[in-house]
């Protein structure tokens, strides 16, 4: 790349010299005999001068040919189809369009390239801990939509979760028919308002039992604000469009591990408090308690 640029530079330079020397030839021809040629043998002097100039031009031309021969031709031009006619646009304000078009084409091309690279790297270093299988052979019966599912499907899911954990009590209300908002209270520790969008978890707010069930105000306690934040992270982590019911189940399983929010010490440092907060993070796979700073 570097070498290509250098060669291109030198080729351009030699063209420049060639042009300036050709100009000098024409200058000399147009001026004809001048006073500084003197009186004696002025024709001879003039012819000599012209010959000299023509030789330099000849040399320069050879240089140009050499340097051009060294250049590597670019690997195929951008084929932008009929958009090339944009460059022929005569209206002044539209002339810039073509340049912008080419630039954005280059951008998308780069993005394509980088994303392909990133995809390769990420697929070899998978850090996703839920087990998703995208193979076409084992694909389960695909649901047509996760947003718009019959309400009895959601109802079944919620009741099955309710049965799964004895210390989680769930009350449901449905401000909008297919999208329930459930209040899951976890023992005497905390309660969470979880809003569903079809089969997917849309929003989670964790609060103390004494606080209101409002979905839009956060808890007044720092520890529950932190838990809410972590719940959002887990909600995104467990999200799986292919198997939404599994995602909800995994999330609730993880959420259930907060039943020892105040009583369990951090797995890493062994203390209860760090920054005056108990361990608010739960490992996504092992469900072990950690402080935010210790995880």
């Amino acid at each position, binding site marked *: 790349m570097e070498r290509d640029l250098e060669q291109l530079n030198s080729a351009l330079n030699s063209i420049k010299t060639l042009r300036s020397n050709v100009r000098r030839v024409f200058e000399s021809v147009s001026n004809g005999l001048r006073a500084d040629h003197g009186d004696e043998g002025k024709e001879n002097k003039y012819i000599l001068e012209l010959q000299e100039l023509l030789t330099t031009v000849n040399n320069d031309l050879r240089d140009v040919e050499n340097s051009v021969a060294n250049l590597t031709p670019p690997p195929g031009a951008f084929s932008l189809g009929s958009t090339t006619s944009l460059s022929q646009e005569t209206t002044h304000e539209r002339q810039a369009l073509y340049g912008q078009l080419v630039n954005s084409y280059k951008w998308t091309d780069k993005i394509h390239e980088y994303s392909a690279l990133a995809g390769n790297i990420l697929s070899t270093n998978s850090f996703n801990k839920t087990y998703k299988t995208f193979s076409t052979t084992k694909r389960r019966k695909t649901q047509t939509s996760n947003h718009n599912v019959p309400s009895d499907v959601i109802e079944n899911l919620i009741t099955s979760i309710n049965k799964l954990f004895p210390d989680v009590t769930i009350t449901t209300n449905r401000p909008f028919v297919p999208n329930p908002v459930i209040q899951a209270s976890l023992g*005497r*520790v*905390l309660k969470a308002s979880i809003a569903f969008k079809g089969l997917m978890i849309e929003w989670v707010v964790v609060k*103390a*039992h*004494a606080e209101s069930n409002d979905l839009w105000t956060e808890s007044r*306690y*720092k*520890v*529950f604000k932190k838990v809410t934040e972590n719940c959002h992270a887990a909600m995104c982590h467990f999200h799986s469009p292919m198997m939404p019911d599994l995602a909800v189940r995994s999330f609730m399983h993880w959420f259930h591990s907060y039943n*020892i929010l*105040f*009583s369990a*010490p951090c797995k890493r440092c062994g*203390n*209860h*408090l760090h*920054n*005056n*907060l*108990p361990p608010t993070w739960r490992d996504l796979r092992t469900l072990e308690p950690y402080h935010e700073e210790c995880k």
Partner: protein
Amino acid sequence: MGVTILTQFPTENRTGPHTIDVLSKRIMALGALQQGQFLVDCETYTSVPQLGPQRTVHVLHNSEQPATVFSLLETGTKTIPLATDGLFDLLMMKMSSFYTSKKQTKAESKGPRYEIGDFCVKLGTVTVSSNFKGILVEVEYRPCVVPAMCWDLLKEFLQGFLGLSGPTNPPAYLQNRMQEIYSPIDTIHQYLEHFTIFRKSPGIGMRA
């Protein structure tokens, strides 16, 4: 209302204000912010002999619940707690012919109130009829309502803040109620326990 632990802090030959100063420097160094003052007071009334066996009523106020008057009636066999609104004070005045108060037993704990994270810390100077008696440190962990769940956490906080003077066991009053939901009257019970001990102890003799 969260779980509250009340513990006595030894003065060790220091004066009351000096001890409060030491403790408030410590809590400020931990990052606490002072949020005003607090006051808990207790007045004790005893029944006149004409009413039969002697009964005692302790009337307490806590600035954390300013609109409530707490009273604990001791009949000798059991203690009946009662939480009422402010008019109860006037009712006690009306009943002065049945229940008389001994003015020299009025106990109170007051001092600065701090907030640090979800904790609320109060450093109280205890006086019984305006004689300095000692220091009471109150620590409340507000998000939690069951003492058993957060006792270890509170113990760690108290020991981090009070050092070796921090408690190693839950207060006697709470020991039988560790699994129950904590309520403001439980704090009042703890204060009364400490006030009763302070009243019996000989005064340190320093004016607060």
